[in-house]
């Protein structure tokens, strides 16, 4: 079912996210959490895994709590329940990006040069990252819309508030060495 929902988020993100907010159970999205833990354990060869894992789960939990507390439809408990389901699935593009970056790090270690091959890979990597970022933004919007059941303007407003609070936090996590790119 997890696989079916993940494929659904690629081909029909709107209706898939709507179904996830209504029907999904922890048996499905536990796989994303397992993959997240696995990722940080694998990167232990490069930097200590526990720091990254604590940072990632801290960001995840605080994001869910933050959006649940904002004024919208439903009780806080209901919103947290729906957000846990939908926000976990928004980690899919994040996981794909981090795993693929890890793969490319070992396959084609940086730094890149200004040669034809370097520029070609740069174009591919930027296009790949941008595609995943846009997908992430779509899933984030749908997650907030279907979990909190609010309109477009309010979704944008809440995302802006979230970014205003999160960006300093991400910079702080970078400065103390927890994570270079925030795992959101």
């Amino acid at each position, binding site marked *: 079912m997890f696989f079916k929902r993940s494929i659904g988020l*690629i*081909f*029909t*993100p*709107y*209706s898939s996210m*709507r*179904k996830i*907010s*209504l029907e999904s159970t922890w048996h499905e999205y536990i796989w994303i959490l397992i993959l997240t833990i696995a990722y940080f354990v694998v*990167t232990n060869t*490069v930097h200590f895994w526990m720091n990254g894992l604590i940072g990632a789960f801290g960001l995840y939990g605080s994001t869910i709590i933050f959006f649940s507390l904002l004024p919208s439809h439903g009780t806080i408990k209901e919103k947290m329940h729906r957000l846990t389901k939908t926000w976990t699935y928004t980690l899919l593009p994040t996981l794909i990006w*981090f795993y693929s*970056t*890890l793969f*490319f*790090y070992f396959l084609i*270690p*940086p*730094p*890149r*040069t*200004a040669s034809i091959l*370097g*520029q070609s*890979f*740069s*174009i*591919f*990597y*930027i*296009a*790949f*990252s*941008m*595609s995943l970022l*846009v*997908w992430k933004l*779509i899933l984030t919007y749908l997650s907030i*819309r*279907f979990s909190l*059941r*609010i*309109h*477009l*303007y309010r979704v944008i407003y809440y995302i802006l508030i979230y970014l205003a609070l999160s960006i300093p936090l991400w910079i702080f996590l970078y400065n103390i060495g927890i994570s*270079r*790119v925030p795992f959101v």
Partner: protein
Amino acid sequence: MKQNTSNLLKRHLKETMIVEPNDLGLPLLTTLYRKVNVFFKTAPFIFIVPLSIVGAVGLVYLFGILAVRLVSLLQYGF
């Protein structure tokens, strides 16, 4: 059979109406939003991937070595 179809339809209608349709205030904006929204609801990668490639080519063409350095920075980002 009819009962099953009826139940399925009711369930689908209930699912569809969990959120109110977006109304942006101005009819023109709402119409524009609905026209653009269609591309994001089903298989958005069909236009996201080509646009990303065009964007990436543009970025590398405009910024050259800076874009390549950005990629090196991102590759260390994991």
